Every structure is written in structure tokens, then in C-alpha cells.
């Protein structure tokens, strides 16, 4: 969700006072829908029809669903068709792609989870497995969502969590009762998500039969392969062969008797935990650090986030739906991601996705909007 260019001067900029750039967001949505969502959903539907044992899970925010409704209704229809097959799971998460767990008051986080469940249940069965924004995870998060009734939670399968243990089992979480953690196999996920079209990679080109062979050599109960949906057609364009890879994957997987597809909920229902993991500090799947430093690493990011948090009180007091919605939209993790000033290769990834010239421009624009918003709240 892109912000408008917003100046401290009211006479400046083309935004007309709007915080979100509707035209741009519409353009981006339509572009990605055309390149990725529509053809990828279509392919998934075909695969589900032709392969009775094929399954897939999605994690869609409420804001994404809204944007579909607004800018690309056919995308939402195709997700609804996928849901009707009964073999597609839609994971639970926060309604907004937000950092709401990082507020010191956890009510907002819980509220956003509820909002999301409500939205998803309009076209699919709510899931018993939760995934936090950018796979943020800790003992405390697992504890909170377990109390909401969730049976599973997704986390990054990091070595410093697992030690010598494998990500290919389910684990209980320190301090929680039963909730099981599903750990993403980041190497096998990134083989598709990042490296699929990388000519420098010694496994390039990646074929479905090779990938299925890798999967069958793994030891363990399950392997969690998760990636951006934009992997298909957007991060890797159609001419890289990414859709052909996907088209052949179920056939190739079926050739191995020890492999079959499952949704996260099926896993947590059918597989027992192997051990307990202890994650006192937040982890995520972002950047090299795999922590929260992609959004809250520098002073600008921390300042912007704490100013947003401070406004939360006032927004709640105002009891005004429009203001509440704007405030929540301003909590989108991307706004903070663009302010990142890490120097190594991660910075390039941040820059690649950023609509701003620099992290400083990102911070300035965000703060200009936040200050305007503060004035607006004062007037209500």
C-alpha cells in the first residue's frame, strides 16, 4: 500500500491531501494481478482438478482482499473458486500487514487477528494455523495466539532456534501448552522464491523433477515451503519457466511414494511434536538478520513507529472509524521497511522494492503524513 508524496506545505504535491496513492495502488494491483495472481490462480485450479492429492495454502491480508475488491475483483473471485475446492487453506494472520504485535499493548494485535478471521470467513473456512506479519515469531506470540484457540503457528526455521535439530518436524513452544510450530524450510523455499531464475546458481535451471528428488531425500515428518506468491510471474517472469515448473511439480512429487501434499492444519492435526523450541527473542524471515531490524533497526524507524504507537491512544479515544482505519493502514510494515539503512546486500533488496529515492525520503514522507494525521485527530 503506497503512500502519496506528502509535503509539509499544504500547497505542495498532487496528493490533494490523501495519504494513500489510490491511482498508483490500483496500477500496481492490476499489473501484479495480470502477471501473477490471475495466471497463478488459474494454474492452481487446473492442478487441483487434475491431481486429487494436490493441496495449497495461502496467507492473504485483509487489506489485500480489500484491494482485490477495489481494483481487481476477478482475482478475489478466483480465490473464492480455489476455496471451494476444499483443498486450499487460508491461514490466519492480522488483517493489516502490520507490526501490531510490536506495540506494547497487545490488544490491537488481537483485534486485527479477529478482523482478519471475519474477512476470510466470507469466502473460506477460518484456519487453525496462524502466521504473523513477515513470519514474526517468539514464545510470547505463540502463547498469545494459542489463547485465541490456534493449534499451529508458522515460524522461520532458523538454525539458532533449532541448533542441530531439523525444521522438518513439528515442535511445541516453550511456555505454551500444545500449539505446534511449523518451521519454514528457508533453503528449499528460497531455491524457488529467490534463486529460481539466478543464472549464477549452480543448480540453475531448477526443474520440477530435480526439486521433487531433493524433497524425497529429506528426513522428517514434513517440509514447509513458503514464499511470496509474486514468485510466480512477478519476481520471476513468465519467460523464466516458473509456471512450467509449478505445472509439473505435482506430477513429479507423485512419482515419489514417500511424498504427499498437506495443508498446515492437516499437519498439526496428524503429526505429533518432536521436541520443544525456545524463542525468547523475536525472529522473522526478513533480511539476513531474520529479526525485526528490517523495520525497527535505525533511529528513524524506531521514532516513526513510536510516534505511530503514541497516536493510537488518541485514535481510540476519538472513536472514529475513518481515523482508526487510517491509523491501522499507517502501521503497515512496508512503510518502515523503506526507511531501512542497512548497508550490505539487504539494502539493495529494500531499495528494489522502495518507491523512494532513499530511506531518508521514506521517513520524511511518512512523518509528514503522520504529523498531518495528528492534526486531523486533534480536530475531531
Amino acid at each position, binding site marked *: 500500500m503506497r503512500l502519496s508524496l506528502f*509535503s*509539509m*506545505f499544504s500547497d*505542495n504535491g498532487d496528493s490533494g491531501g490523501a495519504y494513500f496513492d489510490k491511482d498508483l495502488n490500483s496500477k500496481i494491483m492490476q499489473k501484479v494481478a495480470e502477471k501473477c495472481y490471475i495466471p497463478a490462480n488459474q494454474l492452481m485450479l487446473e492442478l487441483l482438478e487434475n491431481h486429487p492429492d494436490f493441496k495449497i495454502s495461502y496467507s492473504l491480508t485483509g487489506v489485500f482482499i480489500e484491494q482485490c475488491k477495489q481494483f481487481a475483483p476477478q482475482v478475489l473471485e478466483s480465490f473464492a473458486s480455489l476455496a471451494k475446492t476444499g483443498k486450499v487453506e487460508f491461514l490466519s494472520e492480522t488483517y493489516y500487514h502490520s507490526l501490531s504485535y510490536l506495540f506494547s499493548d497487545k490488544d490491537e494485535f488481537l483485534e486485527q487477528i479477529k478482523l482478519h478471521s471475519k474477512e476470510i470467513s466470507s469466502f473460506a473456512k477460518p484456519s487453525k494455523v496462524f502466521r504473523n506479519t513477515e513470519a514474526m515469531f517468539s514464545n510470547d506470540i505463540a502463547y498469545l495466539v494459542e489463547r485465541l484457540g490456534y493449534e499451529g503457528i508458522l515460524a522461520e526455521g532458523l538454525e539458532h532456534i533449532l541448533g542441530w535439530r531439523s525444521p522438518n518436524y513439528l515442535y511445541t513452544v516453550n511456555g505454551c501448552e500444545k500449539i505446534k510450530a511449523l518451521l519454514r524450510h528457508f533453503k528449499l523455499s528460497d531455491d524457488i522464491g529467490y534463486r529460481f531464475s539466478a543464472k549464477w546458481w549452480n543448480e540453475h535451471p531448477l526443474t520440477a523433477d530435480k526439486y521433487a528428488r531433493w524433497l524425497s531425500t529429506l528426513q522428517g515428518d514434513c517440509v514447509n515451503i513458503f514464499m511470496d506468491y509474486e514468485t510466480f510471474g512477478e519476481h520471476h517472469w513468465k519467460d523464466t519457466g516458473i509456471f512450467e515448473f509449478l505445472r509439473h511439480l505435482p506430477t513429479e512429487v507423485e512419482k515419489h511414494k514417500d511424498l504427499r501434499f498437506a495443508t498446515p492444519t492437516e499437519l498439526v492435526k496428524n503429526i505429533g511434536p518432536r521436541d520443544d523450541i525456545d524463542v525468547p527473542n523475536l525472529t522473522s524471515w526478513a533480511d539476513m538478520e531474520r529479526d525485526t531490524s528490517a523495520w525497527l533497526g*535505525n*533511529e*528513524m524507524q*524506531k*521514532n*516513526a513507529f513510536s510516534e505511530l504507537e503514541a497516536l493510537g491512544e488518541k485514535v481510540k479515544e476519538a472513536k472514529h472509524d475513518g481515523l482508526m482505519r487510517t491509523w491501522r493502514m499507517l502501521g503497515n510494515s512496508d512503510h518502515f521497511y523503506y526507511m531501512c*539503512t542497512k*548497508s550490505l546486500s539487504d*539494502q539493495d533488496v529494500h531499495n528494489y522494492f522502495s518507491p523512494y*529515492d*532513499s530511506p*531518508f*525520503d521514506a*521517513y*520524511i514522507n511518512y*512523518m*509528514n503524513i503522520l504529523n498531518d494525521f495528528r492534526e486531523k485527530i486533534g480536530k475531531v
Partner: protein
Amino acid sequence: MRIAMLGWEFPPFISGGLGVHCFELTKALCEKGAQIDFFMPVSGKKISSPHKGLRIVEVAKTVLKPYMFFSKTGKRAGYGKNLVNAVKEYWSHCISSVLAYSQENRYDIIHAHDWLASRAGIELKQKLSIPLVQTFHSTEFDRTSWPWQYILDIERSATENADLIIAVSKRTGDQVERLGAQKQRIRVVYNGVDREKFSSSQVEKLGSFRKKRKIVLFLGRLTEQKGPVQFLHAAKRVLAKEPDTLFVIAGKGELLPLLINMSLGMGISKNVRFLGYIPDEEQRKIYKVADVYVMPSTSEPFGITALEAMSSGVPVIISKTSGVAEIVKSAIKVDFWDINSMADKILALLKYRPLAKTMAGMSLGEAGKWTWERTAAETLKVYEEAINSRKSNN
């Protein structure tokens, strides 16, 4: 390596980045064991060599004015009638002087800086049969909106005759290509900064004008190319929101009367302070007290001052049309014509402390990477390349 370097500025006789470049480059080259004879016009200030291995040779009596200037009445006077003669005189003195010195010193290479030295370089290359490296710190296209054909021709012949050409940025390299140079003979070698000189500078009491007011600094020649007019327009906008800000303009140049009149006409003269030309020591202090440094140049081949401000821990806003914008990440980059955006960014730096702090910290770190030692090492590589390719051609 023995180098005959032809320049026309050397501290304390400087009017811009070229003088700083020559001082720092020769210093770093000498530290690497090079022996340099630096031939320049008589400065009238009696320059003694500051580095071991460097000899300064003042060759002609004319004091050259390399930049376009205006007469006292404010009327455009171009480069002045006598410039052509003065330059020609410098060339002939330079040539005979280098030839004389080469009797005792067999030079390995000639290195000429900018067009004022280039003709002498070309002739010496032929007479001594050694390679010529020509550096462009700017081209006539950068210095004025009304390029003078006479100088363009000299610059063009410099690009044709040099063995290798050094440009101080990619954008300068592009301009040199525009002059007709073959791309494969252009090497980009960025300028550097002596960070310690600026970061360690102690700030004493800074006179009366500080008074807790936030300071936005412009430092450069007051000429169209440096964008002081845009700076004033941005100041006007900022002052509408932050009326207590002080805009300091350091430097002299033909636009001074116009700028003073402008600040009066805009009703912001109380918030604009013209310092005139300030010497090195003062410059280091003024960076230190600035809250924001703005370099709004319409065309800036490199822009050493941006690195100097960064070394002083000052957040910088620089024009996208500058060489330094190609290499630094911890700066805010604006279009020189976008007064609104420039004002917005200045205001943000004045108001958002975490922004200024983050940028200042990053700037210090980044400036440290662009040492003159680096510039000298890359320049040496160009010398060696020129010498080796001549050897293999023979």
C-alpha cells in the same frame, strides 16, 4: 614515477575544487613515492611546497581567472578580453619551463588539469615523447550556459590528444564524451576528502549570529552553476514554517549583488547572512555549526564540499546533477529546480531529529571511504595504463 603536472591552482591560491584536488592528489601521490613537479602560473603569493617529493614551479606572470566573471557594474564581462593572451602566455612559459626541467629530470608522464593547461600538455607530449593524461574537473558545458567556442575547441583537442582522460565523475565523463572523446579512453576517478581535517575541527565561539538559531548553509562560488538563487527561493519557503532559521551563504561571485537584492525583495534579508569568501579554517568551523548543508548546483562535476560537510557530521542535501550524488548514499538528493522539494527536505532536517542524527552518523562513516589515498591510487593506475599501452604500441 616522475610526473610533470600542469595546473593553475594550488593552495593558498585557489578558487574551487581544483586547487583542493591538486593539493591532496600531489600529497597522496608523493606519499606513494611519486616525484612531482607542479607547474602553475605565478600566484603572487609565493607558494612553497607542502609535500616531500613535490616541487612547485611558478612559470608565468599572469594571474588567470578561470571562471566567468562580471564587471563591477554587474554587466556580464565574459572571461575578460585578456584571457586568451594570458592563457597563451602561460602555455609558452609552461612549455619552456617543463623542457628545461626535463633536462635534469626525465619525466615518465605529463598530467594536465583542465583546459587551461591542456595545450601545453599536448605540445610537451610531442616534444618529450611521453604519454599525456588529461583530467577534466569540469567542462565548458558545466561552467556556463553560454559555452564559448574558443574554449570548447581547446577542450576538444585535449580529448583528442590525451593518451587517457580522467573525469571526476561519470557525469563529467559524459560531458567529455559530448566533446568528442572516445569512451574507451575515459577513466572515472572520484575526488576524495581528508575526513579528519573536518571531523576533528574544534568549534570555538562562533560570533553573534548563532544564538540557538538553526543554520542552513550554502558554500560555493556565487555563480549560476552553483544554484544560490534556488537556495534563496527554498529559504523563503522554509521561513514561512520555521521563521527562526538562519540561512548562511558563504562564498563570493558575480551573483552577490543580485542575491542581496533578491533577499531584500523577498523580505527575508534578516534571515540570510552573506559571509563572502571565507578561508579554509573558517570553512571548517562553519560546517560544524551548520544544521543542514545544501548543494543545489545546476551542474556539478563532482562537489567536494558535500564530502567536507559529511566529514563534519552535517546532513547534506545535494543536487542529483552532481558527481558526488553518484557515490554517496547517506545524502538526500533533489532536483536543483525543485524548490518545493528542497524546502521540504530542509524543513524535515530541521524538525525531525532522528533523521538528522541518522544521516549525520552515516555521513561520517561514508565520507571516510572516499580518501585522497584512494584517488591517488586510481590516478596512478591510469598513469601506469598510459605508460604501458605506449610501451606495447612501440
